[in-house]
């Protein structure tokens, strides 16, 4: 090292290869978030994962527990899945949840994309106010929204007595009200990166406004739309608070049903139902990621 410092130019030339590498490596400082070279970062990440996933892993594991109680492991069984499947009210709640989630996803996605396009494309009086109100359901406490929805439906009337799935309409409407702004926000974020010249180019080549929307703007938005739809689906599927305020005795969803079951005792049946909910969510996420993948690289023409 002394040699290096006194004759840097000569020294560097003469250092054997292995040593030169060692010297060079020493010069690279450790970045503040360099995961592989900071043991405390690894510790934090490890702890986070443990705290996040240990409860879920336990929940899934105990859904296979051959015991009425959820405390001691007694052996492996599928019994509680069969039991949950045969529990008519649990099964109905599950079907209700899926139905509401699917309708909500379809309607919220369309509304959210329309709202995003409106806010992106046009200027109109009161736009700022409209934009603020669109985002309101995202920030408003869910409990307030639940109470508001209950008050609203108490005034206009509950859809009790209507045939299935129309008797779910009030829950579905509530879900759409709070999930379409999420879609709008996500799609809007994607639109910010849109190169307006693409739209001009399309019209220049002879396309109408509708053709431009269909062939140029919507394909560009696809990753945002898919992500928004996924958010809408999961928000609806696992919503408890707002659903709790808007569901009736005949219209119960899976989260509300699980909550009422837990009030008596936490049986492996509850674990089984929850596990199914988790699996559906994971499958939806994976599917959405796959759908987004081919166009993830975005807009190379942008500039």
């Amino acid at each position, binding site marked *: 090292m002394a040699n290096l410092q006194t004759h840097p130019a000569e020294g560097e030339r003469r250092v054997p290869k292995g040593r030169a590498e060692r010297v060079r490596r020493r010069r690279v400082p450790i970045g503040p978030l360099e995961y592989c070279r900071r043991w405390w970062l690894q510790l934090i990440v490890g702890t986070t994962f443990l705290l996040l996933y240990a409860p879920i892993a336990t929940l899934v594991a105990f859904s296979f527990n051959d015991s009425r109680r959820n405390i001691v492991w007694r052996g492996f069984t599928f019994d509680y899945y069969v039991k949950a499947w045969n529990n008519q009210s649990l099964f109905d709640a599950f079907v209700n949840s899926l139905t509401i989630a699917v309708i909500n996803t379809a309607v919220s996605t369309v509304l959210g994309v329309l709202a995003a396009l409106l806010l992106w494309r046009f200027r109109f009086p009161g736009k700022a106010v409209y934009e603020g109100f669109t985002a309101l359901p995202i920030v408003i406490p869910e409990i307030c929204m639940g109470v508001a929805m209950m008050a609203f439906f108490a005034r206009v009337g509950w859809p009790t007595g209507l045939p299935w799935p129309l008797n779910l309409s009030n829950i579905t409407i509530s879900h759409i009200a709070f999930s379409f702004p999420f879609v709008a926000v996500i799609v809007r974020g994607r639109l910010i990166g849109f*190169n307006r*010249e*693409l739209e*001009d*180019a*399309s*019209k*220049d*080549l*002879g*396309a*109408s406004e509708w*053709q431009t929307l269909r*062939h*140029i703007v919507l*394909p*560009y938005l696809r990753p945002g739309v898919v992500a928004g739809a996924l958010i809408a689906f999961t928000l609806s599927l696992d919503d408890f608070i707002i659903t709790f305020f808007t569901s009736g005795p005949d219209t119960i969803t899976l989260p509300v049903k699980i909550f009422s079951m837990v009030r008596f005792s936490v049986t492996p049946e509850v674990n089984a139902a929850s596990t199914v909910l988790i699996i559906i969510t994971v499958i939806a996420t994976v599917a959405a990621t796959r759908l987004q993948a081919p*166009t993830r*690289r*975005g*807009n*190379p*023409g*942008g*500039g």
Partner: protein
Amino acid sequence: MEQVAPIISIQGVTKRFGAVVAVDDVALDIRPNEFFALLGPSGCGKTTLLRMLAGFETLDEGTISIGGKDMTDVAPNRRPVNMVFQSYAVFPHMTVFENVAYGLRVVRTPSSEIDSRVREALEMTQLNDFAGRKPDQLSGGQRQRVALARALVKRPQVLLLDEPLSALDAKLREAMQLELVRLQNSVGITFIIVTHDQNEALSMADRIAVMEGGKIRQIARPSELYEFPNCRFVADFIGKMNLFEGRIAGRESGKIGIEVAGLGQLWLPTDDGGAMPAQAGDVGIAVRPEKVRLHREAGPGAGGGAAGDHRIGLPGKVHQIAYYGDTSHVFITLESGQILSANLQNEARSAAHSVAVGEDVWCSWDPGDVLVLTT
């Protein structure tokens, strides 16, 4: 010029953005098959004018007609023009083939015709091998060719190009300049190019309109624009220019005497067509750097240029030299303190004839190369 019905006629066109007048009462006729350039610094209104031709901007005043038909209020998708955008605007989710076919598909062209016309356009732009590629697998130059093919496949009456070469590196830009001219010759349609690069405009265009502050300053052929700019702005914007301020001091038959600070009285011939000011007043005296010659000894024009030797000459000291390989730009401090630039061709490899910084030199030029600018 012979009288041909213009393909594009712009009359009294004005466009305002709030308080800013982007295009100010512009009138312009463009002839069929012309390669026309709109040249100017950024913010001069050239792109706005082009976008008005394409139909993307509405006009506040005036009319635009294309191919003899009034297009002032016609939507972009119904105009017989196509545009190559600055960002190329190649559709990222479509292949090269689909990009080029798009303009034909949206107007429901029969698919057999689409196929042959797209093949033809890809052939013309040398993209045959890339038909199945997505834009993110293409280089900048290839993407630009896609934008060109996509516009040309529509067989427009006029092709509009908005700064088409600005995103390319220098080598590629030069190649594309030649290719654009070749393409224009082979397809035989009118090209209108917007550029801020004077070399691009000079080397490609048949005629150039120089714009500044929303107004057209001069419309001329490239050589005319370069040798006979009509105002200080054009003289300075196109190429480099040595500008001196002076005033008309006297007049003889066929000659005009101009008093220039630091240069003394210059006698210039008035018979070479340039519009000479009738009355006394302030004028600009301009000479191109490549018209200036450098000498080691006091030589031509030492007598003041009035009699005998007709060249104008004056002493100076070399202050800085910028070497460009083929040429050297020499900056000379004159006795008045003004900087004169002279471009020297590096004709021989030996440095014997070249000048060095700090050397005393004698600069001279032909009075016929001097421009008198009144505005």
